[in-house]
């Protein structure tokens, strides 16, 4: 924890935020507290209200009801003061594609009311920090996705803000670019910045966040550390894909008996999926049971629950996004 940690209360505080867009209740009484110097991950599917929450907290949208303080300042009463204390990196890269990387940072520096000399120094500093000095004079339109995201992040850090909002910062990035963004965020947090991060990826929250809030239908439905949430959400699953439809009924009985649980069946995909405790032992038991029964499997895999399953369990509503996160074992 660094110098910018506030002793006088949380960096982000929201109470009962409500916001309706037409017929959609984007926020339905969202409460949130983020201690200074920590990373809070807002996890949820598309349309859960994550982006709306960030838009309200960063003064871009006014809530219909509720209250919020960011860096100790009332968001509704003093939006201009909040803007001088936050950095916002939105869901889509918000840069001028015609201008060069350096020109973009100069522009945003001037709009932050830095003088010309300070804006230039800050631009050079940020370009170096995000490894963009070589590309500094090229138009942003020629940058790769990862470079754009890094420049976008740099543009959100012009004033070294105590609170940084990151709205799905790695969506659409390849693994290498994602790792670069994660590194950059970790360095900021080490320097004492408070980060509110939205993501659809359990893995991303796991990597970066001290605390996670799961958001659905505009409110927080679960919170805790990533570890707490994972164990609360139930353990691993074993998936079995069969080769013949005729085997399905027998396989459900055999696998169910082997791990003492009822498998879910996908008859079209010839797939069954069962919740297990103890990854390796359960995998071995399933393989043994299939072998003993003389059932051929195309694939057997043990994996962590996907966000879909998390949501199914927490809300009873299927989410539209999924990212299977597991290792496959050929059988």
């Amino acid at each position, binding site marked *: 924890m660094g110098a910018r940690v506030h002793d006088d209360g949380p960096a982000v505080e929201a109470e009962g935020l409500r916001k309706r867009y037409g017929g959609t209740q984007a926020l339905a009484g969202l409460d949130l507290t983020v201690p200074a110097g920590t990373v809070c991950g807002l996890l949820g599917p598309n349309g859960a209200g994550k982006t709306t929450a960030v838009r309200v907290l*960063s003064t871009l949208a006014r809530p219909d009801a509720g209250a919020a303080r960011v860096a100790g300042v009332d968001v509704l009463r*003093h939006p*201009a003061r909040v803007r001088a204390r936050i950095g916002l990196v939105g869901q889509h890269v*918000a840069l*001028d594609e*015609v*201008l060069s990387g350096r020109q973009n940072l100069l522009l945003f520096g001037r*709009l932050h*009311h830095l003088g010309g000399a300070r804006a230039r120094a800050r631009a050079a500093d940020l370009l170096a920090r995000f490894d963009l000095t070589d590309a500094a004079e090229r*138009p942003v339109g020629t940058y790769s996705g990862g470079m754009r995201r890094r420049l976008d992040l740099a543009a959100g850090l012009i004033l070294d803000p105590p609170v940084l909002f990151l709205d799905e910062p790695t969506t659409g990035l390849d693994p290498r670019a994602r790792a670069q963004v994660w590194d950059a965020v970790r360095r900021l947090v080490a320097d004492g910045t408070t980060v509110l991060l939205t993501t659809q990826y359990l893995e991303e929250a796991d990597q970066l966040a001290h605390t996670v809030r799961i958001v659905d239908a505009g409110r927080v439905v679960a919170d805790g550390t990533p570890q707490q949430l994972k164990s609360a959400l139930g353990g691993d699953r074993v998936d079995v894909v069969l080769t013949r439809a005729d085997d399905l009924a027998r396989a459900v009985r055999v696998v169910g008996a082997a791990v003492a649980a009822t498998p879910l069946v996908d008859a079209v995909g010839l797939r069954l999926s069962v919740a297990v405790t103890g990854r390796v032992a359960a995998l071995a038991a399933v393989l043994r049971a299939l072998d003993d029964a003389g059932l051929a499997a195309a694939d057997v895999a043990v994996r962590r629950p996907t966000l879909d399953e998390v949501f199914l369990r927490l809300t009873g509503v299927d989410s539209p996004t999924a990212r299977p996160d597991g290792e496959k074992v050929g059988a």
Partner: protein
Amino acid sequence: MNATSAHPVPRRLRWAVADGVVLTGRALAHWRRQPGQFVVGLLFPVLMVLMFGYLFGGAMRVPGGGDYREFLLPGMFAMTMLFGVESTYAAVATDTARGVTDRFRSLPTASSAVLTGRAAADLLHSAAGLAVMLACGVAVGWQWRGGVAAALAAVGLLLLLRFALIWVGIHLALVLRSPESVVMLQILVWPVGFTSNAFVSPDTMPDWLAAVAAWNPLSATVAACRQLFGNPGWGGETFAAQHAVALAVAWPLLLTVVFGALAVRRYRGLGR
């Protein structure tokens, strides 16, 4: 919207101007980086001068007599201003769709500067374009006969029309928010441009169309410019034709007030 009392008014005003200048400078930097776009943007009106002036010009009858190219050029100047609505639209819609407008709104930047910076930049852009069109006019034999003061007044009226159209463009961009929809605007510009006195006299149109053309705001500016430049084809019996200069001031002012208010409302509404 964000009426905070964080800063006293003079300081806020100073930042509003300074931020507006920074954002105008951003647009100027665009032209330095993409000079081709400026040239291509002017190619079209120049092409139209050549097409109408030489290809169709022989078949055109100027009311009250006179050279068609002298009649045509004030119309083309006003058309150039009208085409400008497309570039305003494209710039604002692109910024809004890409999230750049939201980024500006999340900064401690004066909120008015985003719109005033755009307006100032587009006005400068159009003034440069108009200068090229005037030179092009002189090259094809157009001239002004009414003295320097009258000619400057005509230029002022053209830029006033452009200023009004900036707010039309900003409003439409904030409503539609789609850079691709500029194609629709490019199509709509034609009926507006042709249903005027820019290319032919409304006298030659069916009565109902002539009435529409006579009251087209574009016609007021074109007629006023013909009058001030001393070019043929102005005047007539309709009220609109007889009060061209007054209407060339009144129409743009009305459009600015209406669409300026709508645009500012839309811009503030981005936070709702």
